[in-house]
């Protein structure tokens, strides 16, 4: 008889204890590290900073939140949220055809190769890849060289001349930030989307076609609704990763701040932990509202 048999028997007779042992560590980690730090963050966002002493005042105050609505901070929030929205939409549009092809059309081999192509960039350092984009997008960089050879220099200049998103070069513009964000976060949209499509039974596509639906109608009526949880999952990644990032907008773009940088500066340089905490609550609020709206619209009905 196996040496572990007595232990197994004992656990069999004490299922609750077995469960406690099994879940204790991961659950403890979740509660203490995740929820605990989240709670600490929330509490700190309601403290305030004494302007004269520079000390954190540990009493309830909505001051930090009020500060969020100052014109400069409001711009940071809107800029970050706008960028996150743009990146998420673009990622969804780019990821859908690829994930669809991987799932329904590609051979096993092609699917594996595509999967590797999506994942491999994640193996290299994120910093290196962002700096690579700085070189690609620089005024004398690869992209402008390529554009010039296509004879599209005028078009590039016109785009860079656009107010708000333009700049002296791609690497110093919001467009550059957008491209780099889109590049680094795209796999986080493709993977959940592909997983969601993988779960769509093929015979539902047959059934839809059998009932007279042309491929476009099948896509809209069957594939899209069933893939929606995947899109929502992917957009949570791309949206929150963009909102929280401080590396891309500090390497690329002009010097206008994003939320990530604001958090960094407030808690590091100026020691204003309450304001930094209030800033981090913003993405959480946005994601919460987004999930509620998605649920109301039936995005999770297929789950």
């Amino acid at each position, binding site marked *: 008889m196996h040496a572990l048999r007595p232990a197994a028997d004992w656990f069999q007779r004490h299922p609750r204890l077995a469960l406690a042992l099994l879940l204790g560590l991961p659950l403890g980690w979740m509660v203490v590290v995740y929820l605990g730090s989240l709670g600490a963050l929330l509490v700190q966002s309601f403290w305030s900073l004494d302007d004269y002493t520079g000390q954190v005042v540990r009493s309830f105050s909505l001051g930090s939140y009020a500060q969020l609505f100052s014109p400069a901070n409001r711009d940071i929030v809107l800029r970050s949220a706008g960028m996150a929205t743009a990146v998420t939409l673009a990622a969804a549009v780019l990821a859908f055809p690829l994930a669809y092809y991987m799932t329904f059309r590609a051979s096993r081999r092609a699917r594996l190769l595509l999967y590797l192509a999506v994942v491999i960039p994640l193996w290299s350092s994120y910093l290196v890849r962002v700096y690579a984009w700085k070189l690609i997008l620089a005024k004398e960089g690869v992209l402008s060289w390529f554009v010039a050879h296509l004879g599209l220099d005028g078009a590039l200049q016109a785009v860079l001349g656009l107010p708000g998103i333009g700049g002296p070069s791609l690497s110093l513009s919001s467009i550059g930030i957008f491209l780099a964000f889109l590049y680094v976060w795209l796999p986080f949209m493709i993977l959940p989307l592909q997983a969601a499509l993988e779960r769509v*039974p093929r*015979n539902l596509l*047959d059934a839809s*076609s*059998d*009932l*007279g639906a042309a491929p476009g109608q099948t896509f809209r009526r*069957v594939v899209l609704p069933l893939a929606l949880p995947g899109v929502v999952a992917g957009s949570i990644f791309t949206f929150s990763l963009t909102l929280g990032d401080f590396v891309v907008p500090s390497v690329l773009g002009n010097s206008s701040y994003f939320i990530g940088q604001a958090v960094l500066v407030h808690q590091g340089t100026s020691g204003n932990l309450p304001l930094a905490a209030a800033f981090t609550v913003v993405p959480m609020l946005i994601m919460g509202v987004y999930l509620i709206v998605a649920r109301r619209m039936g995005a999770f*009905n297929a789950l």
Partner: protein
Amino acid sequence: MTNAAPAAAFEQATRRYGAVLAVDHLDLEIRDGEFFTFLGPSGSGKTTCLRLLAGFEQPDAGRVLLAGVDVTGVPPYQRDVNTVFQDYALFPHLSVEENVGYGLMIRRVPVDERKRRVAEALDRVRLGSYGARKPSQLSGGQRQRVAMARALINRPRLLLLDEPLGALDLKLRQELQVELKQLQREVGITFAYVTHDQEEALSMSDRIAVFREGRVEQVGTPSAVYEHPATEFVAGFVGTSNILRGEAAERLLGRQGAYALRPEKIVLGEAGAAPPPGQRAFPGRVVHAVYLGLSTRYLVAIDGGTTLSAVEQNAGSARDAEDAAGRAVTAMFDPAHARPLAR
């Protein structure tokens, strides 16, 4: 009905998967209004035939015709056929009503008419009050009926059914077999039905095509296929048969060639019993007996070599199957019941 074009036809239709010939130069006609069954073991090509009719697959060679029109290469959504899938393929994100009304919605049938017809279709399958539910809230039998309603509401010329009762338990399956057959008579639509269950095929079909390795072994009415199996495969797949060939055929039947003799055609009498006129009798010994409730199946070793399978109804007081082994018996049968086999 006799001079109408067949509801569906295959002409030298061939479908390959890599090196495997799933359907091999098939010629077959499904008559208008009949309940036609594709019967065969898994991998015999019967489901591929259905997929060729639906348009999910296209033949590598040959043609597929629906109502006399060549539909080879026509996509499923342009064919006047509907399918009931093996696992129903109900849309999980849509309600029962929306599932049933899907075809009408796609064809832009006005909402009023759509509602009326969906309600009718659900009533017909006795699910009138289940319209607002999701498929996940239904039992297997209910899902099956939703799948039927979703297909029939479109009034197709031809309804394709891919083992539609395969996932249900025996009792429910038998109930739905009767229901399906009644439904087919009511709506008057041609049914093309795929199953590997020979009992199901025999009880429901007007005609059966028995498939083996992508080819049709035999086409005929249930009684023709059962009583006159054309090949050894059919004799063994549709019911069971004693296959007599070579020396056994000569000794038991006095004939050359290969023959199928159904176990229920063999009557077991007491040892030394005299056969009725026209029948032959052979002394033997029961080797094994299996009590099946309705009947008892005996394996009888005929003196001199051959072993025959015989089935007796347990009418009256059944002899005890457990005591039967070793008993000396006389196996009697009419040699006319031994049907010659093609191969």
